[in-house]
């Protein structure tokens, strides 16, 4: 009906008043101060790890400490990456002397394979964990079935017993399954170790997702699987990232179970190999630290990759009220 557009020509643009600087400055300073503290606390020790890994043993244990490497050396790293699988005979054996920089703990050649083992185990655990805990968490958080709470508490209860008490029986189980010294043993074990808590993480997040969304999905024709896939999965990305990181890093860090369930380079994970560098006769801190630095890198890279999924406002605009 209304034919021509009645659009007043916009009045000559009056620029917005200049945004005052003071409050922004205050916030900036506060943030900067806290950021600095944060960096010092979180990255300080790691910085030392890096710095000492670039020093020789003598430099690293000097008094007063060398905060920065006086003559940075990559010897420790070179040693790790050069170390190759070799036949040790009388001729090729190493006589340990940790201070020379050329020192290489036996087992250094296992570091990269164990890094691979750790990665494989961690990724499998993270992936399977997600599958298992997503479904379970959805059921517990969303579906009102009898025994809902009992399920949660039972699952959590599997994690209250100290690992050290479970070491021997777990060894028996894994042996019965014929999985000793296999990555599969670690994967199932870590699944059992991480799943209860990732379920818990996801549940507590799911409960915050507006229930009307679930209802809408159900009315639109989703079964429980559909609601999980279409509503809960996409809306809980941050929690998924947290759960994934948790599962991955827990397997990445785990020590006691790996110690008893694995025997050699076939299945040993990074922590086991690194702890093997802490030897009775010769411990090279600078070398251990170099290994530590290498161990830190992959998870941090992964984390950086996944971090962009930790965003806010995922449910903005979904419901009113």
């Amino acid at each position: 009906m209304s034919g021509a557009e009645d659009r007043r020509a916009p009045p000559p643009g009056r620029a917005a008043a200049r945004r005052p600087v003071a409050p922004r400055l205050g916030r900036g300073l506060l943030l900067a101060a806290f950021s600095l503290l944060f960096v010092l606390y979180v990255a300080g020790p790691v910085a030392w790890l890096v710095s000492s890994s670039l020093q020789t043993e003598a430099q690293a244990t000097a008094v007063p400490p060398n905060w920065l490497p006086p003559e940075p050396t990559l010897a420790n790293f070179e040693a790790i990456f050069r170390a190759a699988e070799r036949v040790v005979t009388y001729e090729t054996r190493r006589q340990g002397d940790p201070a020379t920089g050329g020192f290489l703990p036996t087992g250094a050649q296992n570091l990269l394979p164990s890094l691979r083992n750790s990665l494989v185990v961690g990724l499998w655990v993270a992936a399977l964990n997600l599958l298992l805990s997503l479904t379970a968490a959805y059921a517990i958080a969303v579906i009102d079935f009898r025994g809902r709470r009992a399920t949660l508490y039972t699952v959590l209860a599997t994690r209250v017993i100290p690992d050290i008490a479970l070491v021997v029986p777990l060894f028996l189980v894994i042996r019965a399954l014929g999985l000793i010294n296999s990555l599969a043993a670690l994967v199932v074990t870590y699944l059992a170790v991480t799943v209860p808590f990732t379920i818990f993480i996801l549940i507590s997040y799911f409960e915050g997702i507006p229930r009307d969304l679930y209802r809408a999905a159900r009315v639109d024709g989703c079964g429980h699987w559909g609601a999980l896939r279409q509503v809960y999965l996409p809306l809980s990305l941050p929690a998924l990232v947290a759960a994934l990181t948790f599962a991955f890093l827990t397997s990445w860090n785990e020590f006691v179970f790996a110690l008893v369930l694995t025997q050699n380079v076939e299945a040993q994970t990074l922590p086991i190999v690194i702890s093997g560098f802490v030897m009775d006769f010769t411990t090279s801190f600078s070398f251990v630290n170099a290994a530590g630095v290498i161990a830190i890198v992959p998870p941090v890279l992964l984390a950086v990759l996944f971090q962009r999924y930790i965003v806010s406002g995922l449910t903005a605009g979904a419901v009113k009220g």
Partner: protein
Amino acid sequence: MPRLGYDERAAALLVFPVVAVLLVVAAFPILYSFWVSLHDVVLTRPLRRPFVGLDNYLRVFADERFWIAVARTTVYTVVTVAATTVLAVLVALLLNEAFPGQRLLNALLLLPWATPSVVNGLMWKWIYDPSYGLLNGLLVQLGVLERYRAWLGDPDLTLLLIANAAVWKQMPLAALLLIVTMKAIPEDLYRAAKVDGAGAFRRFLHVTLPALRPGLMLVLVYETMISIRHFDLFLIMTQGGPGDASFTLSWFIYVETFRSLRFGTGAALSYILAMATFLLSYLFIRFLGRRL
């Protein structure tokens, strides 16, 4: 009234995989160690392991070391959990802000967590070392300290120093969980609070903090669970010492099980610790959880 049970069936199906994994891997060890806790299993006497009911538990309660361990564990757990939680809240608040460099800080946050426990223990032991430790070096260079001193060797400080190493490593997970919870807070609530007249601090108090409840529940439950059972740092850093300064329950369990080879009392101790852990977790969940 007939009940179709679609929900029940779906729930069963969805929960089944987890239950299966746990049954295979977790159920036997847990039941086995419970069985052990009811028997007098001492490995140096392999031929006799009679059923003794709750004797192992009673023995433990009668052991003065147990009460020392309870005291140490309590101090350690409370300090670790409290410090982790408070720090994590602060860090989460910082990282939840948008500012240049925030992504970098986010990546840095992962550093301690990604540091393998073994390296973490060694690193802190090194930092605390009485003759060439960094802490000494730093404090002396800053003029705070006159000469190098023993840190872990001071029984009044040992637990706190170990706790510090633990907090450093555990805080990132806690912070991440809190950040994730914060991301789920509807922006509308902040807008409402602003209009209602709340400044930044009150918004934190009245909007962020209540909304953080589920996150705090996660953090408290998890941190309690692992702190109360912490073991590897003690193995690497103090082995329960000096004296009994870091003689915690989990260390006691280790000693009883693998040093004394008394699996029976070790298991009984484990179950006592497990009960305490479960109870605490339950309280946190009931207190902070929504529908749980």
